[in-house]
């Protein structure tokens, strides 16, 4: 193990390390903690300049309920209606594509695979004008469906890379054995490969959830207004509505950030497995 385990060093080194940990964490998360502190202050604290002292009163409930009485809940609901279908769509499409690319040998296999990888690196901006146009033409501009369709298509690149590598690492004998038994190919996918892919499916689902929840660019390109916009875009209009009302803005931001954070803490193992794909050989 590197660096050398701290248990093997002197008592003072151990104590120093143990006390440095919380200190470092406090520094690292200071900007966020500041916002959390803002979110429980009364607005008078901001007018009298009490930014960093103890809040003159604890207004957690009133601040957060004010946020819930704004358009915030609508935006958050939109985010869910955009994120969940995208996760299902992208994961299913890429599970199939990954199966095709990971199991079968055919011409263009590697070419198609690399096409998916390459698309994944592309700067979104090159897609912006045509995709916006396409969405308009389909009559899906400013709808959640329009946003979902694009997200599915774009995320399929990354997901296929992930799925294909995962499937390729499965023992091929399983498929051969099934074929010898005369099992149809689609049944091999459904009954042999899919059950083995559960960890990959879980990892991708949490990752895509976070990516899509946090998307801002496409939200402002393809939607406007309360009807379809997710919370990342909503928070900017919230920003305009509550300009300089820092306590409400802070509370709003924290609420907007909560679902992916909860997802991360609940599914940590899968999340990190997905994110660090390829970091170890």
């Amino acid at each position, binding site marked *: *193990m*590197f*660096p*050398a*385990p701290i*248990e093997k060093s002197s008592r003072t080194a*151990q104590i120093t*390390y143990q006390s440095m*940990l919380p200190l470092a*964490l406090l520094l*690292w*998360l200071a*900007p*966020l903690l500041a*916002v959390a502190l803002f979110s429980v202050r009364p607005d008078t604290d901001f007018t009298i300049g009490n930014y*960093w002292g103890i809040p003159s009163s604890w207004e957690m409930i009133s601040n957060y309920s004010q946020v819930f009485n704004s358009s915030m809940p609508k935006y958050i609901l939109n985010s869910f209606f955009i994120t969940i279908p995208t996760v299902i769509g992208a994961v299913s*499409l890429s599970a*199939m594509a990954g199966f*095709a690319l990971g*199991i079968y040998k*055919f011409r263009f296999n590697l070419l*198609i695979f*690399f096409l998916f*990888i*390459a*698309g994944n*690196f*592309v*700067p*979104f*901006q*090159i*897609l*912006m*004008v*045509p*995709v916006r*146009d*396409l969405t308009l033409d389909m009559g899906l501009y400013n709808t959640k469906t329009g946003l979902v369709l694009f997200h599915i*298509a774009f995320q*399929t*690149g990354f997901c*296929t890379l992930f799925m294909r590598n995962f499937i390729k690492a499965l023992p091929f004998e399983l498929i051969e054995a099934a074929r010898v038994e005369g099992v149809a*190919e*689609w049944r091999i996918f459904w009954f042999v490969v899919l059950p083995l892919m559960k960890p990959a499916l879980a990892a991708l689902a949490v990752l895509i959830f976070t990516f899509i929840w*946090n998307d*801002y*660019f496409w939200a402002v390109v393809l939607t406007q207004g309360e009807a379809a916009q997710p919370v*990342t875009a909503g*928070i*900017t209009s919230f920003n305009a509505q509550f300009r300089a009302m820092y306590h409400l803005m802070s509370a709003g*931001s924290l609420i*907007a950030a909560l679902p992916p*954070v909860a997802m*991360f803490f609940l599914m940590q193992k899968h999340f*990190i497995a997905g*994110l*660090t794909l390829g*970091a*170890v050989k």
Partner: protein
Amino acid sequence: MTTWYKKNQIAITPWLFLIPAMAMFVLYVVYPIAQSFNISLYKWDGLGEAEYVGMANYEKLLTRDRAFNISVWNNLKWLVFYLAAIPGGLFIALFLNQTVRGIRLYKSLFFFPFVISQIVVGLVFTWFYDPTFGLFNGIIGVFGIEPVNVLGDPELATYGIIAAGLWPQTAYCMILYLTGLNAVDPEQVEAARLDGAKGLKMLWYVILPQLRPATFIAFVVTIIGALRSFDLISIMTNGGPFGSTRVLSFYMFEKSLSEYGFRMGYGAAIAVILFLIMLVFISYFLWRMYQDEKGER
């Protein structure tokens, strides 16, 4: 029909499984790239008739557009300084790669900034830099430095935003390195220790070579992140002050969907240039991955 399918199943099935994903991908990713190249040759407001202007958009961009120059320079700054996330992430990973009690929670909490949306990160840092109440000025005040309005200063604003971006990006690199460190071969480390290697020497000659896959991925995601930077700029300065924090992706958005009329052709030309810059990196990444694929066969 069914017997024919049964005979050729192995040849046909992969295509059946590929069609949905490929159809979506071609419609929304591959074809639009080609379209963007085409649109960039036109003058078009997005509604009326597009007028063919050949290379005029590019000519204007490259010779007469000061804002474009600023954006390219800022993109370069992003590329260079954003890479600090890699050593930064490695440093934190080394700091946290212990087995003391509660370390797992520490690791998760250090990773935290990556999970929140860049919009929230942007807001958080806007307040962090705020000249009247920001924590930043409080901190530098301790060292006797006069308050600075980071985001209001054209010279400093871009660096301020990059620093905000480094916060989640460093967390990402950290998690990559933590996973990498986990897989470092303990026998090699012990052998090197017996040979008297330690500290920086050990890190450089024994550990880092084993972390190469993690470093490669950290490099890929950081470069892509740097060239895609948009959210933070949009929320923290909206390109200002005086357009000093624009980058290509932001400038492109601004031109295409500007409130003074859409200039889709011009925007597409900016996007094409951004794409070409990215292509240099994409080719390198793909080449590296292709080498790996060949190696596995």
